[in-house]
């Protein structure tokens, strides 16, 4: 009986919720072009400080951010403070998980995995690593960036855990990598403050849009984020595999 009551209750609430939402947004129609008042126009034309109407791939030189992928320009340049906060969130949850269940140093016993998985893992591990590094180094050109790249690396380690029951990731090294990557990101920001007067300012030359060494600090930041995210997720996975300490 209780289930029925809750069911009716939720249906009524959904209807009301949708009516309410429809007041402020149109559920079915989408607008054809970006409204002028929207702040994203500046992001697209990279015209927040310098006023330029058009950015041409491979031609415009030292534009505001110089990164071809506009989303990356937002994530790492225009709103990089968000990303710093973002990285801290992940750092925090990693620390938390390690604090909670990662404190013992002996691992749970794992069953021996199947033959196919063991051999495939040996082949796939380096491929994953290479693809991961490619993704977070080319963040400013194609889609992807620090976060997807980092998770790719972490999944490669997960693959090893699954395949080899005696594999133990070096937790300490990952922690130092984690810390140093984070410190690197903040130090870049601080140099931006010293050099350019604003925290996280893009003090390196942005070069021409489209080529590899083009948009100032973006690749450097994305690399550090990639390493940081990779090590954090690996630590989370490894602490889940750890023995339960009855403190």
């Amino acid at each position, binding site marked *: 009986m209780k289930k029925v009551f809750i069911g009716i209750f939720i249906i009524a609430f959904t209807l009301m919720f949708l009516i309410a939402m429809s007041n402020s947004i149109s559920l079915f129609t989408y607008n054809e072009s970006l409204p002028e008042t929207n702040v994203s126009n500046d992001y697209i034309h990279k015209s927040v400080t310098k006023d330029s109407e058009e950015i041409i791939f491979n031609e415009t030189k030292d534009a505001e951010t110089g990164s071809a992928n506009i989303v990356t320009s937002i994530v790492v340049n225009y709103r990089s403070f968000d990303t710093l906060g973002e990285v801290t969130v992940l750092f925090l949850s990693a620390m938390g998980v390690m604090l909670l269940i990662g404190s013992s140093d002996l691992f749970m016993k794992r069953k021996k995995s199947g033959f196919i998985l063991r051999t495939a893992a040996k082949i796939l591990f380096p491929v994953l690593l290479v693809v991961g590094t490619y993704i977070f180094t080319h963040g400013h050109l194609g889609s992807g960036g620090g976060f997807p790249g980092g998770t790719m690396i972490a999944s490669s380690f997960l693959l090893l855990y699954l395949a080899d029951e005696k594999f133990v990731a070096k937790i300490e090294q990952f922690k130092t990598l984690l810390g140093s990557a984070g*410190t690197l990101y903040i130090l870049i920001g601080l140099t931006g403050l010293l050099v350019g007067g604003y925290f996280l300012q893009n003090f390196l030359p942005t070069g021409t849009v489209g080529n590899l060494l083009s948009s100032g600090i973006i690749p450097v930041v994305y690399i550090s984020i990639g390493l940081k995210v990779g090590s954090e997720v690996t630590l989370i996975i490894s602490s889940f595999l750890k023995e339960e300490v009855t403190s």
Partner: protein
Amino acid sequence: MNNPVLLIIIPLLLAFVSVIIKKAGKWILLLGVLINTVLAFFITTGETIIGGFLPPAGINLVVTQFTLVGVILINSLMLLTIIMSIDLVGKYSVILLTALAGINGMLLTGDLFNLFIFMEITVIAAYILSAQAKKYHHTITYLIIGSVGSTFYLLGIILLYHLTGSLNMADVAAKLPLLTTKELLVPILLIFIGIGVEVKLLPVSGWVKGVYAHANRLIAPLFASIIAGTALFVFGKLFVSVLPLSDTLTMLILVMSVMTFVFGEFAAFKQKQVKEILLFSSIGQAGLITALFISGLVYAAVILIISNVVSKLIMFTIAGAFTEKYQTDNYHSLSGVFVHNKITGIAFTIAALSMTGIPLLIGFYAKLNILIGFFHAGNYVLPVIVLLMTIVEGAYIIKLLLALWAPGKEGQVSLESFAVEKKQLLSVKNTAICLIVALVLIVGGTLIDTTSKIVTNGQPLLGDESPYFIISQSKGGE
């Protein structure tokens, strides 16, 4: 070098560094808190841009007089909490440093989405810290309610972005009045529920009892005074200067906060445990403060926050010490505990009396401003409720104090032999700090003019023009 960004970056940097060095985490934490407090006193009002991009596109940190008071208050309280319970920090130094960064971020940021991220940082840090009491089912409840709340908040911001096209608070505040109230209803409602979780408004404060009641001497004041204080400052900033409230919405929110206030006080009246009394009283006070913000009395709300936050710090630290030393904080089984440690008792009593609004304490000054503010705004119903609740509050506080000070059954003159056995509640250092903080309450309450000068130094807080109590004004013809 008084750039407010440093307030956020330095604790973060120290957190990352302490992960690398791995030992002496405590001292890095102390260093971070010290630097932050010193820095907090140097920042000036104004706006700092991050990454060199002008506000609607980039993120900026806005420091008004209102935020300045918040930052100084919260950082100094964090310093006190850490100093007082340095021995309990142990493995949590990294978490506390990040939480400090999150709290400062929440207070300073001028961007809605950035506020969401810093709130997430603080909330996640709170989940981890609340787990130290080993009551995991309460922590999970807190986590689930917290994440539902933050999801609603995120949905609210996105709706605002869809309607106004930007995420910067000042920009959004400029564009919102142009929209119809029908459109604005859902986003404001969602943001209200999102913030409400952290501000402990009644329907969404289900988690408070579980988490606060088992916190130890470090975590309890952290939750009750620092995180609660920050949430209230953020609520004030959002609902006074950013979101325009139509009158029906104001009335509804007012009803909800008054309901929180009344039910909070009544629930506190019923409790037997010291910490539960304090946590329900802080829920009640949070309700009153939201009511003040909604009706635009920002100065009175700030004074009440200061008085509340400071007295809760002392009382929760001592309540934490109760459970630490006597394994229970039921005030019947703790009768006469202050007989042995009188100075702690004095500090606890001053803080408690300031909460009930006994004169010459800052609590009384806050109550005075509340009354003057409401009368000035022509609202005569709320002062009656506030005064009735003060009586209820006075009742349970005095019942608590009497039980703690005077041991012995009814009809017996209380003697030292009836008191609970002798244990040193707080270390000498902590007792001294508690006493000094308690004296601040007294000084704040007596030298009213200096308090108002420090808090406002001239400008009205967030544009709140309603009069507040200054001695010269009340002198009448000499």
